[in-house]
């Protein structure tokens, strides 16, 4: 397979890091399985309004909490609502909050941290003091304020969470950049005449992808749980709507009588997080040319 690498001298083509990463990721079966599971979950979440077996809000108090059966595969909750349907609808909220809030955190955090770390001096001090101030601000007050000013909406909730989570990302990235910019290849890029932005995008960020990806795979679950916490306080989404976090927290309350109300949502969340971790590990390895030879 690898013998075919001899290229005719006139048709040399460079590989970009990303093309290589895709090739390498494809060879990682665990990561591909994770990607597949996440993909299926996202497709189901998108199609839920059309494929869900029951309505998520119509209660059937006669039925009450019933264990899994042929009619209700995963059973029903205390109001007689189909659990499978509620998990599917919950997935829409949880996946969206996980990915949107983390993406927001990722972009702000990476650029903020990279610019602060690379520029250094006063800019760095100013940008990081701002981060410190935001850290110190009680995050609940911040979110309640946002809700009061802009009204309650799910999208705002996503943004609010993202705006809180980027702080840690910025700190991690800045720390990495501080040590990276001492490296000679960054100095060589300066000596070459590259602009600071080009150096950050082409030379610095690709070299800190490892820690970034690890942090992202940690952030997504914590964001999902944060949403459950906010919803529990009445700041997030409200019943009869659902999210995985909410389902789990209700499940915990009724764990002794109706264990399936905890087991199934918990299982779905765990599978999602496992898939994310496998994908994250796979991406980290795929983006590092040193980890594999082909």
């Amino acid at each position, binding site marked *: 397979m690898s013998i075919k*690498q*001899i*290229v005719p*001298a*006139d048709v*040399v*083509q*460079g*590989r*970009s*890091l990303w093309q*290589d990463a895709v090739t390498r990721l494809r060879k990682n079966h665990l990561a591909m399985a994770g990607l597949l599971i996440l993909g299926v979950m996202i497709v189901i979440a998108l199609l839920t309004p059309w494929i869900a077996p029951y309505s998520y809000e119509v209660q059937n108090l006669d039925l009450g909490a019933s264990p899994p059966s042929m009619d209700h595969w995963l059973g029903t909750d205390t109001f007689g609502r189909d659990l499978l349907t509620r998990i599917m609808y919950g997935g829409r909220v949880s996946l969206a909050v996980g990915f949107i809030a983390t993406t927001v955190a990722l972009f702000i955090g990476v650029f903020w941290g990279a610019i602060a770390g690379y520029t250094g001096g006063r800019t760095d001090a100013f940008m990081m003091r701002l981060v410190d101030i935001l850290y110190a601000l009680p995050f609940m007050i911040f979110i309640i304020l946002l809700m009061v000013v802009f009204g309650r909406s799910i999208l705002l909730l996503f943004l609010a969470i993202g705006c809180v989570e980027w702080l840690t990302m910025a700190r991690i990235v800045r720390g990495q950049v501080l040590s990276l910019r001492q*490296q*000679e*290849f960054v*100095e*060589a*890029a*300066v*000596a*070459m*005449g*590259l602009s600071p932005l080009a150096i950050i995008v*082409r*030379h610095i960020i*690709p*070299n800190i992808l490892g820690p970034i990806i690890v942090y992202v795979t940690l952030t997504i679950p914590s964001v999902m749980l944060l949403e459950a916490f906010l919803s529990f306080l009445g700041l997030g989404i409200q019943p009869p709507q659902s999210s995985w976090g909410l389902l789990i927290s209700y499940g915990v309350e009724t764990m002794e009588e109706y264990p399936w109300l905890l087991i199934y949502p918990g299982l779905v969340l765990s599978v999602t997080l496992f898939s994310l971790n496998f994908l994250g590990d796979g991406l980290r390895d795929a*983006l*590092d*040319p*040193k980890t594999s*030879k082909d």
Partner: protein
Amino acid sequence: MSVLSIKNLTVNFYTRDGIVNAVKDISYDVNAGEVVAIVGESGSGKSVSCHALLDLIAQPPGKIESGHAYFGDIDLLNCDKRQMRSIRGNKIAMIFQDPMTSLNPYMTIGSQLVEVLTTHSDIDKKLATLKAANVLEEVGISDGIKRLEQYPHEFSGGMRQRVMIAMALLTEPELLIADEPTTALDVTIQAQIFELLHTLRKKYNIAIIFITHDLAVVAQLADRVLVMKDGSIVEQGTTEKIFSQTEHEYTKNLLAAIPNSKKPEQYRYHNSDDSEVPILQVSHLTTRFADHSTGLFQEKQYLNAVDNVDLYLKKGEILGLVGESGCGKSTLSKTIIRLIDSHEGSVKFEGREITSLDSKGLKHLRQDLQIIFQDPYASLNPRMSVYDILLEPLKLHQPAAKNLLNQRIIELMHEVGLSPTDIRKYPHEFSGGQRQRIAIARALAVAPKVIVADEPVSALDVTIQAQILDLFLQLVKRHDLSIIFVSHDLSVIRYLCDRTAVMSEGKIVEVDQTETVFNHPKHAYTQKLIAAIPSEIPNQSLA
């Protein structure tokens, strides 16, 4: 009587790319009071063969396949962990290459020394402290008791290596293994450390295994030499015999690669026309760093890293810049190409002042002034393929159609002696010498007029170093380049450079034709530096 007797030692490493035979069936003896040098290039197995003795190689991936190493009547390769611990650091001591990292920065020198003693014997702590202080004085650190209270960062590199030697001597070992102990040190410090090892050996009759890649060092210190290549001992004998009746082809190559002559005539700079305007003119250049140890309200103190320097560089000339670590030669070279801003003075490139250029002017300047760094492992972005590394400067400064750029990249690869088929590989897939070639190709990509080379060969093996030096000579000739060549290695400077500037504490103390500097040094510092060069190799016929 032999202290150590190694028989048929074989070490393999099981990596994902297959089995690597790091050490292949080697046998040798070390006698009491003898200095045995193991010479070889990186990857020759010289370090692995010694680390294996003390069970210091990671297993897996490493595995000692076979062999015996008798230290007295104990077989080091087949003894249990407890026995090993009682020998390690006690009967056999080791000194490592980098004194900056081999001491624990959070412990005082004293507690680190005492720890060695208390680990290996039931000695009283007070007595141990006294003994530690004694040994410190022994290795030339005066005021031992007081120095014990200090932390490693309060010692210079040479001093730390002395501390390491003191630590090794504490337990009165029978065998000392020194793994490139002076490679990270300046030449004058290196000479002092050799002196010290000499005295100590005579005094205590310690056997020393000295691992090095530097033949000049061997000539000065060793009684016997083992030459290793690819895991095998290719030649061994007394030092005299190795140098005077070299048998193996590889040893001959090693000896020939030592730059101990002048560069060939056709590469020398010839231009007696003094009226020619230098391509680079540095005058009264000063670069300062703020001293952070001053308080908030005190007036800021500055440290002149580069202090009122005057230099010029003619077209097609190689100017050597030599000095010890911390003398400001790297700062000077980075100031010249404006990676660091100067404080005072001027740098003129082709008559144009460049210290005041704005970012746009600077971008143009980058085309003409390029830099090559010391460490080819750190100076290439590990996440970019060679193609991308070379494409980047081309795209930035000479945008053209893609096939033209590709053409140019292939030319560059040819020019620095790399195969264009390797273009898709990443830096870690190349050896150190090849990486330095990539770094040179990157600097050449924009067709610069001046290249500042900051210790470009110090991280390379001697045979690779010779190849890279020749590459420099050819490129200078072909492209009419001018080079400022920074190095602490005097023999490299002597071989390569037309003129040499000697730097000390931020100042240029002497600058003249290279041969004049070496044969008739005027300044006291230059004289000291040249006296410290390891003595010439006994046999000159190879030169």
